[in-house]
C-alpha cells in the first residue's frame, strides 16, 4: 500500500515537472524543473530496487550534466526580451501528435499485458547480494568489452568538446615550444676575445 502511494505521488510530480520543462519561457526555470524530474526519477528507480543507478542518476545528472547546462545557459545570456514570444505555429499539431503517441503506447501496453510473460510472484524482497555488487559482477565479467567502449566514448567526448571550444587568438604573445627547443647556440652567443682587442 505504501509503495502504491509513493509511486503515484512521485509519478505525478514527475509528470508535472516534465511539463514544466517544456512550458517555461525562461531556460533557467526549465533546467531547474529538469533537475526535479531527475531526482524524482531517482526515487522511482529506488522503488524498482535499482539503488546504484538511482544514486548515479542523481550524482552524475544533477551534479554534473545539469550544472553544465545551467553554466552554458548563464554564460550565453540568451534570456532577452525577443524570446518571450508564445508557442510557434506547430503547437496544436505537436500536441495532437504527442497525445496520439501516448495513447498508442499506453493502449499497446495494456492490451498486450498478458503476453509480457513475467512472473510477478518470483520477485523477492532485497536478497543478500547488494545491487551494486551484482551490477559490478555482471559489468566486469560479461560486459567488460562494452564497459571499455563506454570509457572510450567518454574519452572521445572530452577530446571533441575541448577541440570544439578551444580557440587560438592571433595577436597574443605565447611561447612556441618547438622553436625554443630547436635553438642553435651558435646563433645566440657571440664570443668575443677581449685581450686581442687591446
Amino acid at each position, binding site marked *: 500500500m505504501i*509503495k502504491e502511494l509513493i*509511486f503515484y505521488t512521485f509519478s505525478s510530480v514527475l*509528470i508535472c515537472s*516534465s511539463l514544466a*520543462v*517544456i512550458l517555461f519561457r525562461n*531556460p533557467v526555470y*526549465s*533546467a531547474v524543473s*529538469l533537475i526535479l*524530474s531527475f531526482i524524482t*526519477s531517482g526515487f*522511482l528507480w529506488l*522503488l*524498482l*530496487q*535499482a539503488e*546504484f*543507478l538511482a544514486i*548515479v542518476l542523481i550524482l552524475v*545528472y544533477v551534479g*554534473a*550534466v545539469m550544472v*553544465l*547546462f545551467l553554466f*552554458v545557459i548563464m554564460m*550565453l545570456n*540568451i534570456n532577452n526580451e525577443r*524570446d518571450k*514570444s*508564445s508557442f*510557434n505555429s*506547430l503547437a496544436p499539431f*505537436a*500536441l495532437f*501528435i*504527442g497525445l496520439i*503517441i*501516448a495513447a498508442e*503506447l*499506453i493502449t499497446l*501496453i*495494456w492490451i498486450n*499485458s498478458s503476453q509480457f510473460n*513475467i512472473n510477478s510472484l*518470483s*520477485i523477492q524482497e532485497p536478497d543478500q547480494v547488494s545491487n551494486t555488487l551484482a*551490477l559490478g559482477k*555482471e*559489468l566486469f565479467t560479461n*560486459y567488460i568489452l*562494452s564497459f571499455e567502449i563506454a570509457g572510450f*566514448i*567518454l574519452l*572521445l*567526448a*572530452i577530446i*571533441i*568538446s575541448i577541440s*570544439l571550444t578551444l580557440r587560438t587568438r592571433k595577436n597574443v604573445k605565447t611561447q612556441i615550444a618547438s622553436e625554443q627547443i630547436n635553438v642553435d647556440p651558435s646563433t645566440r652567443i657571440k664570443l668575443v676575445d677581449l685581450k686581442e682587442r687591446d
Partner: protein
Amino acid sequence: MLTLQSYLSLAAIIFAIGIIGIVINRKNIIIVMMCTELLLISVNFNFIAFSYFNQDIAGQIFVFFILTVAAAEAAIGLAILVALYRNKKSIDVQELRTLRN
C-alpha cells in the same frame, strides 16, 4: 498493486511530453537538448522496470551504458552550442537556416 504496466505507462507519458517539447519549442536549442534528456529518462524507465519484473540485471547494465552515452552527448552538444553562439551570436531555432537552399 504496482504492475509492469503502470511503470511502462509512466514512461510512455514522459516520452510523449519529450516529443511535444521538441516540436513546440520556439526559442533555443538548449530546451531541445533537455527534451532529449527526458526521452532518454523514459527509455531508462522501461529498461529498469523490465529488469525488476524479470529479475534480470542485464537491463540495469544497459541503463548504465545509456547514462554514459547521454553524458557524452550532453557534453558534445553543449560544446557545439558554445561554438555556434560564438559564430552566429544566436542559438534561436528559427534563425539557424544556413543549410537551407
